[in-house]
């Protein structure tokens, strides 16, 4: 910025600014009266038209042949950049020195989330099928129920049908299961580093129970038929199974340094000209 480098005598003493003018308000009043005449009396329209015409002409003459300007005297008080709050970090363990907080310092790589999600999905599927066996509905029963979230026909057929294998339902359920598991795994990978204390408690118990509670309260409204068939105890159990396994797998992966302060081009691995001198983002402060 220029202020700090220039001395007072180098600064301009006057600045030209557009001069004030009444024509815009005249034109606006004219147009308003012109249309207001439609709902009142035609004479208002006539008055409005006259004002609008005067406003237009006046505005034009304000700009032509030369824009009217007025000079403002510069009463300059140079801006003195001072800071009273230089430091940023609240957590000493995050930032040792300086005034830039860079949190989180370490995150899990994306692959950790994917691995956690896949591992969790296996655990959840096993628990769900165990429920099928224990409840004498058969192992296909929970799979068909999951498919019924988007594909409601099995709920309408007999309870025999819902316990047998259907290839379409299996594919639908597998797709939902893998997709949802991957997304939740990625979410765990992104969120867990932000809770350094007891990630397993949070990811393994708190999140599944909150989610189950939310679903329990609304499923009866969204899909009452499906609601009748859910065994909530087993539902919570399989959710927790997912959470613990996914959380453990994620937490066991190695962490990497964040690179959020690097320019986008460097983070994307692009070779661009004029990039600033490379700084290792992981080494705290430069």
């Amino acid at each position, binding site marked *: 910025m220029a202020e700090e480098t220039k001395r007072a005598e180098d600064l301009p003493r006057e600045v030209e600014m557009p001069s004030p003018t009444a024509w*815009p308000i005249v034109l606006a009043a004219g147009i308003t009266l012109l249309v*207001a005449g439609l709902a009142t009396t035609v004479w208002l329209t006539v008055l409005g038209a006259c004002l609008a015409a005067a406003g237009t002409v006046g505005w034009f003459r304000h700009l032509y042949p030369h824009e009217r300007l007025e000079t403002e005297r510069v009463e*300059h008080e140079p801006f003195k950049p001072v800071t009273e709050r230089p430091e940023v970090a609240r957590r000493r363990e995050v930032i040792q020195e300086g005034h830039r907080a860079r949190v989180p310092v370490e995150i899990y790589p994306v692959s950790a989330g994917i691995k956690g999600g896949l591992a969790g999905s296996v655990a959840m599927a096993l628990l769900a099928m165990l429920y099928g066996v224990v409840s004498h509905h058969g192992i296909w029963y929970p799979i068909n129920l999951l498919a019924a979230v988007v594909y409601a026909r099995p709920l309408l057929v007999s309870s025999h049908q819902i316990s047998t294998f259907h290839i379409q339902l299996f594919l639908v359920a597998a797709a939902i299961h893998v997709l949802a598991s991957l997304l939740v795994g990625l979410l765990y990978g992104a969120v867990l580093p932000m809770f350094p204390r007891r990630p397993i408690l949070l990811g393994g118990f708190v999140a599944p129970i909150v989610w189950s509670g939310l679903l329990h309260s609304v499923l009866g409204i969204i899909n009452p038929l499906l609601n009748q068939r859910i065994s909530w105890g087993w539902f919570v159990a399989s959710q927790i199974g997912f959470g613990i396994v996914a959380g453990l797998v994620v937490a066991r992966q190695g962490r990497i340094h964040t690179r959020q302060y690097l320019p986008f081009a460097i983070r994307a691995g692009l070779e661009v000209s004029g990039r600033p001198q490379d700084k290792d983002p992981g080494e705290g402060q430069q």
Partner: protein
Amino acid sequence: MAPDSMPIARALSLPRSERKPWLEVLHEWVITVDHKKIGVMYVLYGLLFMVAGGIEATLMRIQLAVPEARFVSPQVFNRLFTMHGTTMIFFVAMPILFGFANYLVPLMIGARDMAFPRLNAFSFWMTAFGGLLLYFSYVGGAGVYGAGSAPSFGWWAYAPLTSPAFARGHSTDFWTLALLVSGVGTVGFGVNTVATILCMRCPGMKLTKMPLLVWLNLVMGGMLFFTISPLTAAQLMLMIDRYLGGHFFDTQAGGKATLWMHFFWIFGHPEVYVLIIPAFAFLSEIVPVFSRKAIFGYPIMVAATVGIGFISFGVWAHHLYTIDMPSYGQAFFVGMSLAIAVPTGIKIFNWLATMWGGKIWLATPMLFCVGFLFQFLIAGLTGVILANAPFDWQLGNSYFVVAHFHYVIVGGILFALFGAFYYWFPKVTGRMMDETLGKWHFWLFVIGFHLTFDPMHIAGILGMPRRIWTYQPGHGWAIWNMISTFGVFVQATAILIFVFNLIHSYLQGAQAGDDPWDAWTLEWSTSSPPPPYNFAVIPEVKSRRPLWDLKHPEDPDWQYE
């Protein structure tokens, strides 16, 4: 100090003989083309109409406090909710947000004024006169056999309630004309904002170095063209129907009433985002400064805003799930309405990530921003619920919907606005707002807000429809309505404290200095209030936080961006 930026305070502090005559001061403001004065006028004008809209809301809440009340007549009640909605959207929320944009955008991009200063004045006066025209309907809109003075069809103005057969007299015409006139002003403002941001930036300020407030207002300005114009077109059709005997919305001649619904909501839903994006802009400036950290994920914030801008034009029919629409149409709008929650969620996470690990300073502007985060989250979640067509069939047009959008507009936009008032008041007037009064304002307003709007969710789930004049006892609605009405008075108290704080601080607040918050954007590098020319020398920037670079020359931002 600029000679005439604080006319009243200066006038009062001067001896009587040196005061400027008030007529001269008034004249100065009326003919001004200075973006700062126009911005202040926008805000003051919006606050004025906020009083009107607030009184209307209070009257409605008094009427609904107990079952079978007779506080106002059904006709008056219909006028109240119509005028309340129209006023708050068109003549309160938009003018105040535009006023802030008008004031801040040129300062933040290091410009001396808007691209078209005279168009700026014209746009403001069109908006102002539009509001006067709307309220003139109370006097001039007297209809045939008591059919109404002010319009009474709800702010959606669904056909056929607006047809000549059902809307006698001129109240409908005043409503239409007022929105047409103010619409011209709004589009003028949009043109000016986009041109200013694209063409008036100071040296070094590339698009990637603009403060987020400027970016978000650029998106908002661009959206205005495709938001307000459809409304203008639909109003023109309505005028053709009413004045020239056309048949656009005339079902007797083969026209469709649902066409108006579509046209109105093609305006109506993007309009919500036109209002919330400037609120996001305030948060994106205030949260980093009071967390003492740079904004987290700047490029993603910009991308999410642009994404919201585009998706918002594909969600309008979630207001019309209950009309004749094919199921694939419903599925499309459900999908789009759910999808728009994703970029919005990204923004919330980015603000949280900005706060996380920061040295948070809970001054009043930051308090309002934290309030915003909580309430806007809930508003967004009820929005996701309502985006599902089956849910909407149950809850559409119930008080649940009323609660949802008031959570967005009051809990979200208004909270961000209050934060912005406390944050930029020192820049505009040179004086700080009182912190103690500010804390009172915040806590009373939070309590009043939740008392008013939380019970509405429950009343809505219990089946209370919106826009009813009164109700029978025994539905289980009475207690929730009573709490709501009580909450309105708490909110009103908080607003009174706010207004008192504005006036009190303007006259007697502590001197602010140029940079009271130790902030990082260009508006804080000029005096408070800024001189008419903003900057004696046009600044040059190298990063998104030019004042950080000045304050920390050993560790400037441009080494990282």
